[in-house]
Structures are given as C-alpha cells and as structure tokens.
C-alpha cells in the first residue's frame, strides 16, 4: 500500500495553490459579500486546463485522472469554497455525465466546450417537492414528433443563472418508476426554459443558484442523454462522482479552518501567552488536524478507486459524509478559537463556517449518505 501522490499530482496541486493564492484568495470575501460569479477567474481556470482535468484530451480536457481533479477542487476550496464547488459540479457531474453517457456527436458538441471551460455545465434534478426523495419529482418530458416537450419546475439548481449546458431530468414514463426518468442536455436560450433569480444564501454565496422553469420547452430527440428511462441510474452515478468533489471541497474548507486557527492562536495573546499554549485550544486544533487527515484519506481513497475503475459509490458517500460533517464541526471550533473576531465579517473563518454548512446538505444530505452507506453494508 502506498500513500503517495505522483510527481505530476504534487506539482499540479502546488500550481493550483499558487493560482488560488494569486487569483482567488484576494477576491473570495468580495464575491461572497456580493454573491458574484467571478467570470474573470473562470476564464483563467479555463486557460490553465482546470475545468476538465479528468476528461480525455480528445474531448477538450487535460487527460489526467480523477484524483488530480479532486486535488484541484480541494486547493481551490481552501481559498474559496464557492469557486471550488462550481468547478466540482461542472466537471464531476455535468462533464462526467456526458463523457459516460453521451453519443460521439454529443461529446463533440457539448463535452468539448465544457471541458475546455468555454461553457459551464449545470445539473438540474431537485424540485421544490423532491429533494432526497427524487421519485417525488413531477417534471415531465413528453415525446411529440421529433422533440420532447418538458414541463415542470426545478429548484436549487447550481449554475442555474450562469450555466450554458443544462443536464435536466424529467419523467418520460412516470408509471415505469425507477426506469421512467430520462436526462436531456438543454443549451441556454432554448425557448421554454428559464432560470430564476439567484437565491440569497447563508453561505456559498458566489455559487449561482436558482429555480429553473420549463414551460412547453421543446428539446430535440438527439438531446436525450443516454437511453430513455436510464436517467435515474445516470443521476446516481453522477452523484458518486460529484460527492467525491464535495468531500474534497469540505477538506479544503477544513484545511483553511486549520490554517487560520493555527495562525491566530499563535498570534493571539491572553494572560501573557499565545492562546495556542492553552490546552483547551491546542486540543481543538489537534482534533481538527486529525479529522482533516481522516477526511482527506477517505476522499483520496474514493477518487483512487474511481481511477482504478472500481465501484466507489459507498466510499464516495463515506468521504462526503465524514468530510462535510468534520468541516462543519471544526469551522464552529475555528470561530470559537477566534472569539469575537471570528464572528465578524472580514475573518475568513466566518465565511468558512457559513460555507461548511451546505456540504452537509447538497448532492445528498448527510442523511442520504447514511442511506447509501447503510444500504451497502446491510445488503
């Protein structure tokens, strides 16, 4: 057993660290405050091949492995969880859905511009009444001649207001149950599809989230992704990939919380000594560092399994569950270590604390992860 990154992975990680320090860290507080999508950063990410790391070169990507993508998401999230997440869902779910299920024509038309970072992907599944209970969805796609006609309302769509290519799930045959949902690639600007206003969120504020409304939206038959009725299986496989990304995002948040806690506790003097010398503080930091290591290993292991072409669904859920809950648990402590200063705008831990919460919710809540994991181990 070898716990070692390749030379290339080490270099790529360092380069992303430098990129994030230079271009992302300085604007992270501002884009959070203003809920702004940093288009200028995404242009640079595209230039450095960061928007399609695990996608083969012939489809516009960098042709590296999934673990390398995960390292990039982690380092990016260490500076800005929103930016890290946008890359994660774009690559891990939108690009991977087309790579794994698309026809050659679809890959040429949609995957290449997405993997090059010229177009942004979105994943459109959740509905107002269908969160963890995906089967409660009501959006329908009815075949009418050479096109499907979609009707329904989706919500909490990440990259909703900013996306270019939307992976939209709808019932083609509700009566067929789990085999009745299908996925469609719908380009921005298709008549009948509209994105709502960007939601005002507690955290992850620069990631753009909205409702998506489909009103007699006609989608050509050739935009059906995969087979009719295969949508749910594809969505679940997409989640497996995406969840490793959320785990990496959580690891990045947690690393940042640790960085900030170490720095501040060594600087902050009370009762004549830096507070890091108090056991109450140093043990918080010890627990934080330990959970960070565990979360990172679970995350890399899940990505490694994916790269070895092994089943990684359970491991992806475990990594996401543990890393996201660790991020939440310890960002609370990081704010505690910072005291009043940590409760104020301007302290990075204040943002980390708000950003951490979503990792326990999206791409499957912690409860949904426990359903996946228990379903696997009790089988």
């Amino acid at each position, binding site marked *: 057993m070898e716990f070692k990154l390749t030379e290339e992975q080490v270099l790529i990680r360092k*380069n992303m660290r430098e990129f994030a320090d230079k271009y992302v860290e300085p604007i992270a507080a501002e884009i959070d405050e203003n809920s702004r999508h940093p288009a200028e950063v995404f242009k640079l990410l595209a230039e450095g091949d960061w928007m399609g790391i695990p996608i083969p070169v012939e489809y516009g990507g*960098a042709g590296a492995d999934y673990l390398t993508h995960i390292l990039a998401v982690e380092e990016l999230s260490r500076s800005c969880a929103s930016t890290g997440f946008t890359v994660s869902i774009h690559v891990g779910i939108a690009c991977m859905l087309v790579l794994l299920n698309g026809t050659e024509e679809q890959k040429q038309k949609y995957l290449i511009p997405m993997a090059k970072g010229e177009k942004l992907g979105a994943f459109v599944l959740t509905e107002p009444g269908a969160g963890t209970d995906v089967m409660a969805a009501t959006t329908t796609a009815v075949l009418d001649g050479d096109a499907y006609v979609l009707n329904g309302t989706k919500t909490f769509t990440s990259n909703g207001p900013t996306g270019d290519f939307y992976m939209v799930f709808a019932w083609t045959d509700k009566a067929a149950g789990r085999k009745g949902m299908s996925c469609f690639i719908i380009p921005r600007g298709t008549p009948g599809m509209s994105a709502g206003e960007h939601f005002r969120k507690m955290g992850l504020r620069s990631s753009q989230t909205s409702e998506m409304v489909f009103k007699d939206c006609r989608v050509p038959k050739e935009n059906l992704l995969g087979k009719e009725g295969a949508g749910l299986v594809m969505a679940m496989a997409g989640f497996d990939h995406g969840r490793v990304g959320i785990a990496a995002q959580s690891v990045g948040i947690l690393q940042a919380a640790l960085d900030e806690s170490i720095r501040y506790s060594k600087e902050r003097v009370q009762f004549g000594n830096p507070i890091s010398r108090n056991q109450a503080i140093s043990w918080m930091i010890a627990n934080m560092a330990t959970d960070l290591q565990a979360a990172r290993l679970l995350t890399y292991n899940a990505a490694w399994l994916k790269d070895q072409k092994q089943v990684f669904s359970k491991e992806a859920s475990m990594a996401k569950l543990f890393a996201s809950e660790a991020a939440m648990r310890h960002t609370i402590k990081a704010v505690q270590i910072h005291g009043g200063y940590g409760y104020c705008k301007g302290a990075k831990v204040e943002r980390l604390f708000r950003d951490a919460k979503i990792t326990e919710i999206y791409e499957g809540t912690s409860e949904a992860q426990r359903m996946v994991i228990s379903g696997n181990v009790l089988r």
Partner: protein
Amino acid sequence: MPKVVACFKWVVDEAYIRKGAGGALDFSAVDYKISEYDRNALEEAARCRGEGGRVVALAVGGPEAAKGVKDALSRGADAAFLAADPAFADLDPTQTAAVLAEVIRTRIPYDLIVCGEGSGDRYAQQVGPRLAENLGIPCVSYVQKLTVAAEGGRIVAERRVEEGVEVVEAPFPVLVTVLPEINVPRIPGVKDTLLAARKPVAIVKKEELPPMGEAKLETLALAAARMERNCEIFGTTPEDIARFVAALQRQGAIG
C-alpha cells in the same frame, strides 16, 4: 531563432523552515521549489525562444533537485540537463558556476544564457557573472527588459542601474541575469505539467565531469533572526530628551 539556456536552482521553500530550540533553523520537514528569480529566468527564456528556437533548462544540485526538473519543463523549456550528485548538494557559487560551465560547454549548444539575478536562498549574485567568465562570453546583469534583435544574432537589454536605466547591446553568445520585474512567471496549466513528463531529460553525473575545485566559501552556521524588544519610555522634559539622546548614543544608533 536563438538556442537559449535557462539556469535554475532548486532551493528550500522558506515557508517550511522551522525555528528550532535556541534559534537554530530546522530543515527536517522542508519542501523545495524553483528559486523565485529563476522562474523569471525560465519565463524570459521561453519568451525569447520565439518560433523555431529551443530552451534548455539546466540545474546543478543534489539528487533531490531531480524533482525540480519537471517543474522547470512545465514552464516552457523543451529539454533539461541536470548535474546531480550528493556532492553537488551544497556547492559554493564558484563550484556551481564551474559545473554549469562544463555542462554547457560540452553538451548544450547555445546563443543566450538566462540566469536569475540571485538565488532565492543565499542571493549571492555570483553564479551568473562567474558562469559568463568561465565561458568567456559577455555578461549583462540587472536586466529588466530583454529583446532579441529582429535580425537575430544579438540582444538589446535594459539594465536597471542605481540612477536610471542603461540600454546595452551584446552579440550572441551572451549571458544575462534578470530581475524579477522583467516578467510575470506563468503558473503552469495542468497539460503543461503532464506534457513535461514526456520531454527529454539528461542527467550528468559527477564522474562525467572534471574536478570542480575547492569551495572558496565556508558556511559556519545558519541561525534564525532574533528580535529583541527593549522598551524604555521617555518624557518630553529637557532632562528626558538628554536621556533619550544618551540612550541612542549608547546603542550606537547615532554618533
């Protein structure tokens, strides 16, 4: 178009140096990086290459410097030479320049050699000029802007000197040492790093080179800077001002 050599040093990343007990520097858990100024040298070499030129990255160092080669290759170099040996781990500038000169003279055709103004660890600013001397070519130092003349065969360089800018021309072959202001080094993209693994790397061992000579510099110790705070409060009465002046004189701050 020119054949360019960019020299780089693989140095300790200062962010990983810890302060041990008694002010000693602890290098036990350090990571390494390409010396900051040498990133400018690599970038400038890649920029000067133009169409049809070639850039060779060159370093001398201990075996761990091999890790720097891929990094250098991901920054635009086409090939790399590395003189690697445990005995090359901590050379003084004379020895470094001697090894570099030997490798270049015997193995790398060149028109232009680009070095950083100084290294990121010692910043002795010795290797560039000494290398030029060893090769018997002109050296242009403190370069903040570099142009390869359109017709080729020579460079035009802006040197930042104490009171202004000096513009000089020099024919090939020539060595320049560059300042950090000369460019903004790239952050390599993912593909740049992956492609680096496919570029040719030649390792030169100590046995393949003539003796490099004795070190002319001896490092006795390295220690962390120590900050002492001596707080003394003075008032504004004539007596206090006299006391203040005396205190400054005592510390040697004023004559």
